[in-house]
């Protein structure tokens, strides 16, 4: 039961985005989402290192060290892009101009707490832009593998890693499921193909609520 590939997790997360939205993609898996945003979607991507309007990750021959995302991956640009400095990039975030952010996570808790900056057991961590993003953005989508590669649970009753923000996550997209954080608890909305609700619950610490229209992901 491995569920979706990283690419398919990114594709499923991209489906959450709507026309006219300004969207920030975090470091790691979230950057893959940019490969599934078509021009027709009318979504504008924001990068905290100072760009609006970038496209997919650049191919080998297009790379320019001066055009990268926050993960230092080479970018492509779309028409209508704009560059600005880091203070401006975060002024946009803090003031609520970013509609959606897609972030990775070490742990997400039952009430939407997010821990994504300090890896378990490491002495130092990198906060980066994630604390500003969860504080300022209207909707926070977490994309991640449902468990660690050692099988440890990542969707937990209470985070044990240092928090990035409390009660900030709206939606979790994993290789196994799409889960909504609601005032009543975690609501299982979709399961990956050939994955059951029981399979998801088995690797999720808190009790999952089942959506009335629980269904298989359309990819």
């Amino acid at each position: 039961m491995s569920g979706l590939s990283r690419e398919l997790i990114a594709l499923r997360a991209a489906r959450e985005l709507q026309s006219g939205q300004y969207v920030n993609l975090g470091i790691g898996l979230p950057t893959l989402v940019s490969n599934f945003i078509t021009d027709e979607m009318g979504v504008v991507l924001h990068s905290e290192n100072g760009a609006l309007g970038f496209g997919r990750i650049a191919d080998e021959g297009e790379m320019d060290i001066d055009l990268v995302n926050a993960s230092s991956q080479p970018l492509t640009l779309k028409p209508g892009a704009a560059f600005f400095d880091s203070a401006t990039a975060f002024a946009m975030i803090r003031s609520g101009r970013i509609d959606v952010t897609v972030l990775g996570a070490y742990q997400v808790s039952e009430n939407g707490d997010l821990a994504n900056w300090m890896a378990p057991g490491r002495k130092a961590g990198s906060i980066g832009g994630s604390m500003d993003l969860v504080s300022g953005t209207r909707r926070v989508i977490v994309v991640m593998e449902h468990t660690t590669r050692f099988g440890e649970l990542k969707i937990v009753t209470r985070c044990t890693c240092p928090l990035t923000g409390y009660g900030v996550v709206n939606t979790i997209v994993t290789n196994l499921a799409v889960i909504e954080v609601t005032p009543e608890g975690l609501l299982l909305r979709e399961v990956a193909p050939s994955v059951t609700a029981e399979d998801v619950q088995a690797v999720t610490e808190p009790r999952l609520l089942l959506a009335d229209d629980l269904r298989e992901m359309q990819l």
Partner: protein
Amino acid sequence: MDKVLVSPQEAVKDIQDGSTIMFGGFGVAGIPFALIKALYEKGTKGITAITNSPGGRLEDFDLSILFRKRQISKVIASYPVYAGKINAFEELYQKSEVELEVVPQGTFAERIRAGGAGIPGFYTPTGVGAVAGEGKEKRIFDDREYLLERALRADFALIKAYKADRMGNLIYRMTARNFNPVMATAAAVTIAEVDEIVEVGELDPESVVTPGIYVSRIVKGEKYDVGFK
């Protein structure tokens, strides 16, 4: 008013031990490689480095070379370590040979912006309820909680731009802009490494990003093949 110096060595020659220095750049883009190398050669020690990410992605060219030579004693940064790799900073940090203050990136940018704007402190929502807010003074405005944050300033800012005119007006190239413009405003002495120096009047006044008033010294960097891929 001609601020152009002949070499990176000349530009950093008065940077004393114990200086607080801002270093521009983010990941791989907008890093003043020639100035970092000159500082490495000079050997200034006891540096407090204010920088978003203290190197590691281009470890033979970025701040990693200063950590390996133990020139930096304290780091104020937002993204000090990477997943899946121990950088030169973290090697020293694990041995407690360097201090670290880790700051949310937006707060980091805004503290530098405040330092360059004559604002000693400001309130931000970022970090409330997280570890970044611990020990910070809190205050409620309109029913929401905020943290008091203090401005950051430095003795020197070592920044990277694309082009300069001789008066110090600067333009940048794409995402190599990042922290360079705000750091340019927040240091007593700002030193800009650029790819190209043009005559006064050649830059469009509408497109200047850093006006020359913020820049003390300009040097032309070499082209580095840092092996980015």
